[in-house]
Structures are given as structure tokens and as C-alpha cells.
């Protein structure tokens, strides 16, 4: 009477069974409907050589028979244009099946990464520096030039810039959330939240209307680690969630690239320690491309700025600088420097982030 998906929702919502057990169960029973039937409708149950221990386990537990809740979720999802895909569906990202605690259901708006699609995860600190945001944005842009998609968490900071970079190139980026797909968290990213599904997708394993609780985020990070082929950590403090994501990715056999930073910068401590543990150093798009076996097409030769513009941009690459430092360090006159900065601001290459303090955009 009901679609498969209702049984999947019912199964996913069962609270007494751990995610790992659910994975075991569904792998054995081959469908949630089958599990339901075994429990409540033995006539329709299809026995496919199920492990005795598992049968014993199922015989002992008591779960709800009620499917109306699942039905409700499904109807609401359809109404709110939320797509659902289950573990058993052929559209389920196969990379996630490698997880021992893979989500039974994935809710999404937009689309999911395809099988052959190359995805690079970009993660990093929420309170990133201008350098971090610049790098994150441009890595995503560079990847987009080679039609490589990005995955991140829509969080403030590095995640946001990565999504923006890909989006601005009209390529696919996927945001995995620590809440329901119908909640935009953080709310400041509402613009990105609306734009991302147009090319890529907003994904979540949590039921719609789930609020972003702290314990949801490590769970969400494993999805990012699972879905990506390569993980790039841009900036991370000593104790950072991004390092946990990196660990997860490492365990799944993914390549980790790290953007190194200045040793005095607390935002680079995590990254630098990853390098120490053997992660690759990201030094430009070529590092990734070799790994992904994409032939190096002719790069868009970025017009290298020369002269005073170039020097200012170079000086600002390290970090933000205030006007006095720029005038003091570079050998041009005050007028030349300031007027050039005005021009660079017009060309969107430099931004005045605070009174008389400039950073590369």
C-alpha cells in the first residue's frame, strides 16, 4: 500500500536502533519494507539468508508499527520541494555506502553529486583570516574552471567562501547541513542557500525542521568526508572541527591537502600539524589536478599585474595592511599608492575592510 520510501522513513526514524545496526540490518534484509514485514507482516517477508544473530536481535526489540508519522514526513517533504533518497535506491551516492554508519535517508534540494562527478571538499575555520577567505574562494574558482565540484558545510568563514567561489563560476557546489534542509543555518548565508540548489544541492541526513544542534555537526562532517574525493583544509586552529573531518577523510582513504600558514598564526596551527602528520601541501591547482588525472588544459593566463599595482597586490597577499605600512614599505609616493589603491578597489581586487586598512579581495 505504501511506497518503499515510507518504509525507509519509518526505518530511519526508529530511535532504539543505532545507525550501525541499521546499516547491518538493511544490508541483510535488502530493504526497509522487508524489515517491516518481518516484524509486523510475516506473510510478505522475503527471507534471504539472514544472519541468525540479527534475527534474534530483531525478535527481542519492540518498535512502533505506526507508519502514519512517516507518511506525514513524506507529504510535507513533497509539499516543500524536498527530495528524499534512501540507502537502497540506485540514486544514493555510492561513496557514502563505504561508511559503517551511512545515513539511511538523504534529504536534498537541487541535486546530489553524480557517480562520475569529481568532488573536492573544502573545510576550515569559521573565524578565518582575509588570507584564508581569499584562498578558499580562489581554490573553489580554480576548481570550477576544471569543472570540479566542491562540497562544504555552508558554515561562516572558509565554507562560505568556497561555496561562493564555485557559485560565482556557475559550477556545482554542495552544502551538507547540520540541520534539516529546510532550515538555513547560519541565517546570514541565505543568499547562498537559495543559489546553491540551482547548480548543485543542499543536502542533509536530518529530518526537515531539525534544528542545528552541536552534536549534529560531527555527523555532518562525516558526510562531507565521505562524499568528497579529496579534502582541502584551508585554515584550522589547534582544536578545530575541520581536523576531525580530515581524520574521517583519512580513514576513508581520501587524499588530504592542506594550505600552509605562518607559524605565528593560530589559524594555521591545525593545518601545519596536519602537514606534519603527512598531509599534502596545497600549492596551487596543479597539486590537485595531478592527483585527479585531469589533463592540464591551457590555463586562463591570469593577467599578472605589473608595476605599482602588482607590488601592492603582492604586499597585500601576505595579510591585510594599513595605509601607513603600505606607504612605508613600498617605494612609491603617497599619492601614487593611494590613487592606485582606489583603482584596485574599483576593479574589485582590493577591499577597504576597515578605516584605512586594505586587504586583497
Amino acid at each position, binding site marked *: 500500500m505504501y511506497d518503499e520510501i515510507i518504509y525507509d522513513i519509518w526505518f530511519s526514524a526508529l530511535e532504539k536502533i543505532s545507525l550501525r545496526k541499521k546499516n547491518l540490518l538493511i544490508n541483510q534484509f535488502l530493504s526497509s519494507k522487508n524489515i517491516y514485514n518481518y516484524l509486523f507482516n510475516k506473510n510478505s517477508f522475503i527471507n534471504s539468508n539472514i544472519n541468525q544473530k540479527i534475527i534474534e536481535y530483531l525478535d527481542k526489540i519492540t518498535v512502533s508499527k505506526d507508519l502514519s508519522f512517516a507518511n506525514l514526513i513524506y507529504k510535507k517533504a513533497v509539499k516543500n520541494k524536498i527530495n528524499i533518497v534512501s540507502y537502497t535506491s540506485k540514486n544514493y551516492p555510492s561513496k557514502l555506502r563505504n561508511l559503517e554508519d551511512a545515513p539511511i535517508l538523504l534529504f536534498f534540494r537541487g541535486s546530489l553529486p553524480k557517480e562520475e562527478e569529481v568532488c573536492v571538499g573544502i573545510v576550515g575555520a569559521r573565524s578565518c583570516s582575509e588570507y584564508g577567505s581569499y584562498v578558499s574562494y580562489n581554490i573553489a574558482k580554480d576548481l570550477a574552471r576544471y569543472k570540479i565540484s566542491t562540497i562544504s558545510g555552508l558554515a561562516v568563514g572558509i565554507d562560505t567562501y568556497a561555496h561562493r567561489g564555485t557559485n560565482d563560476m556557475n559550477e556545482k557546489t554542495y552544502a551538507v547541513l547540520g540541520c534539516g534542509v529546510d532550515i538555513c543555518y547560519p541565517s546570514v548565508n541565505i543568499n547562498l542557500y537559495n543559489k546553491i540548489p540551482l547548480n548543485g544541492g543542499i543536502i542533509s541526513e536530518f529530518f526537515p525542521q531539525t534544528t542545528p544542534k552541536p552534536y549534529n555537526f560531527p555527523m555532518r562532517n562525516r558526510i562531507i568526508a565521505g562524499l568528497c574525493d579529496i579534502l582541502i583544509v584551508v585554515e584550522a586552529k589547534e582544536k578545530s572541527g575541520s581536523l576531525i573531518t580530515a581524520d574521517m577523510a583519512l580513514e576513508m582513504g581520501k587524499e588530504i591537502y592542506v594550505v600552509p600558514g605562518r607559524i605565528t598564526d593560530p589559524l594555521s596551527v591545525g593545518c601545519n600539524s596536519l602537514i606534519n602528520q603527512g598531509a599534502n601541501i596545497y600549492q596551487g591547482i596543479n597539486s590537485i589536478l595531478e592527483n585527479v588525472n585531469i589533463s592540464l588544459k591551457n590555463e586562463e593566463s591570469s593577467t599578472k599585474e605589473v608595476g605599482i599595482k602588482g607590488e601592492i597586490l603582492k604586499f597585500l597577499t601576505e595579510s591585510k595592511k594599513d595605509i601607513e605600512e603600505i606607504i612605508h614599505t613600498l617605494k612609491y609616493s603617497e599619492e601614487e599608492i593611494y590613487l592606485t589603491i582606489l583603482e584596485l578597489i574599483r576593479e574589485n581586487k582590493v577591499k577597504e575592510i*576597515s*578605516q584605512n586598512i586594505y586587504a586583497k579581495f
Partner: protein
Amino acid sequence: MYSEVYGSTIFGLHSYVVRVEVDISSGLPCFEMSGLLTSEVREAKERVRIAIKNSGYELKPQRIVLNYSPANIKKSGTGLDLPSAVCILQAFNYIKDISLSDIMFIGELSFDGSIRKVKGGLPSVIKAKCAGFKKVIIPYENASECFVVRGIEIFVAKNLKDVVLFLNEENNLERAEEVAKINEIKNKASLDFSDICGQSLVVNAASVAVAGFHNFLMIGPPGSGKSMIAKRLKTIMPNLSEEESLYITSIYSIAGLIGENEGLLKERPYRSPGQNISESAMLGGGNNPRPGEVTLASKGVLFLDELTQYKSNVLEALRQPLEDRCVTVSRVSYSMKFNADFMLVGAMNPCKCGYYPDREKCNCSDIDISKYFGKLSTPFLDRFDITVRTKALNLNDFENKETISSNTLKERVLVAMQIQKERFKNKNYLFNSFMQASDIEEFCKLSKENMKLMEDLFIKNELTARGYHKILKVARTIADLEERKEISKKHLVRALMYRKCINV
């Protein structure tokens, strides 16, 4: 019996001549006063009566009625005690029956007959001179502020009896010039710009602000020297001219802020009201019109530290004085215009925690920052002609003793002031920041190349007309400081650098 004598009262910032009349007649003994008086003046009833008695003059119980005209000006202050007593004494024939219409009497009376200091001594004496009085008798303690007024004989009296004897020509009163003791105002704290390490951009900007009387804003992290610099602005500001000094001293006299033995104020005022100040304390007003902070800071500095902590209605209320250089205070019973030509100096942090954009210390997001700046409306921030960033010091700056002394800066400022004085000799203002559009046309001509630069910025929507004028005025001051007649590209660009950042 009838008698009339002259005194004065202060309303707002002006002094008015008051004619005190008394009528003594038979009838039930009483003491009445009329003429729109505040309670301060009404209390004179007891003071006058007892002072007269204790000075040795007995008043027969009669019906005494005093009138103070003009009856439509509200009379306040305690300075009318003395003329009231003199009037009564003359009516009772203790003083010779001669006309006292060319003398003005000012003073408060104590029970023992001694005459006490009053507020507003200086403006009253100035008014007396302008109104044609030949002599004025003032309290001893007001001597030091009043003696400078020329063209009128100023006598000081210590008690009522001396005044009576003087009027009967039985003794002399001392003159104000003889008794005025001006204490040399000791340089309170030896503040100097050389206390500031590094920060040459801010220090130069401060000198430009002072030289041209431009409104000046400092944005920076805690402890980067904003308050320090603000306190030292006085040390590079030129002294008041004599005319300005009379004007300012009058205001301070009315507000009761002239200290003991303090003569004419020579230094420019420096006011730094606290963040809790109310709108009427800032602008002036109240039941009896009193000058507010903006008026007390006229011709000097009004410093607002931690700009975002002030009540927003108070900051918004500053827009009129900043625009018109005066403030109109309207109440039910009066409408008064006070002068408010002050230089506004502000200090604030770049964000709530104070350290933006230093990512090591600051975790404020873009939203937090715009919320923080949001407390100050853009039109208000626009009023600042010069905005600069102060930097947190690091060890290098302390060791690198690149400092500049107040004297050096003051010399440059004085030079610029001289140039401006010459430039504006036919106008009624002294500084570049007061220039109107027509003056800018005349005095801030730009070379073709520079015109093109400004047009460029204008077209690219980075300048409004007001912004354009502001930049020219500041550039003019920068050029004056370097004693240049022409505004060069360097000056123009400097002025551009002093614009406030549009992103925050």
C-alpha cells in the same frame, strides 16, 4: 516715597538691564515684589531685609512694594539683591536723594550685609557699558573677570554699608583693576604631543583638524591613544583672540564656570561630556535657558569618547549645531538661539570587542560590525571631515622614538591660522571649515589635472557634492600648513585619505 535703581539679570546668554522701583506707603506692613520673578529673586525678600537691618539701618514697618521692570522678562539670579537694598534704603532716606540712574548695581546679599559673587558678572558689565551707564558696582569676587571692560568705571564693594557710604560720598570704593588678582593658571599637567609614540598619520591629521577647525574622528582598538591624543589637542590650539575671549568668558560666567580669581579665559575651551548626557544638557535649555555643552565648547573642542555609547537621540540632535553652527532651543515659554561653533572630536572602536580586523583577537562577524556601526547614522558620521585609524602599539613603536612636540605642531598651526585670517579678513569667520560654496570656488581653485581627478571620482560615484566640498576644504588646510598657495595633488590625495571608510 518712591525710588528707582538699576540692576541686571541674565536670560539665556544675554544680559538685560532691570529697573528696580520701590514704593513705600502706609498700610499694613508687608514686603511685596512683582515683575515676573523666579524663586531665587523672590527669596531676596528675606536677604535684603536682614542685610539692611544688620548693616545698621532700621526700617520702620511700612508697606514696601518692589517692582522689577521690564515686567515681561523673567528675572533670575541673585544679582538683584544689591539694587533692591539700595532702592529701599534710598526710599527710606538713608541714601541721599540724588539720581542713581547712571550707576548699575550687581551683587547678592548675605544676612551680615556682605556682598557675594554672582554669575554672569562679565556680560552684565559689558551690557552696562553698552547701555550707557557710567559706573557699575560689583561684588569683590567678580573683580578678576570684569576688570577688563573699558569705558565704564567699575567699583567693587564688600558689604552693603560701604556702598551706602560711597553713595553718600562719605568714603571711596576700590576699583576693579586695583584689586583684580589673576592667578597664573599653572600648566596643570604637562601634556604634550611628544608623549605619543609613532602614529604619525594620526598626529598629522590632528594638526590638520586643529588648523582648519575640521571635525575629527579616530577609530581604533582600545589603548591605541585616542583619548590621549584628544586631551593633547589643546596644546596645539592657538589662544583665543581678545574678542573671542570676551565672548567665551561671558558664556562661562553665566554658566558659573569662572573659577576663583580667574580672569578672562585665554585657552580654547575643551569639553568632554560623559556618555550619559541628556539632550538638553548637550544642547542647552531647561526652564531657565542655560547654555549646553555645545555652547560651552564654542571656539574650542567638544570631545565625545566611545561615540557609540552616547544616546542616539543626543547624537542626532548634534546635527543642527554641526550644520548651522548654532542651536535653537524652543520651549513653551521661550525660543532661544545659542551659538555652537565648536570642533567635534570623536573616538570609537572599530567593532564591539575593539580589535577588528585583527583576527587573532576579534571574532566579530560582518553582521556584528554593521550592527555596531549602525548605532551611528551615516549622515552623522558624514559630519566628520577627517577620519583616521589609530593603531595598537607594538614593541617597535615604543623603541622607535619618532615623536613630534606640541610646540612644533603649534607653530605650524599658527602659520596656517595666519593665512586663514588673511584670507577671510572680509568675512566673519576665521577657519577653512566654515567656508561656504562660494568661498570654495574662490579659494580652492584646482589645477586642470586635479580637477580631472576629482571629476573622475565624482563620476565613479565615489563622491557626493558635500563630500567634494569637504575634501577641498581639508585639502586647503593641508596646503596652508605647508604654506603653499596652490592645492597640489599631494594635498588632495591626503584629504581623500581622510575620508571615512564606506564599507563599515
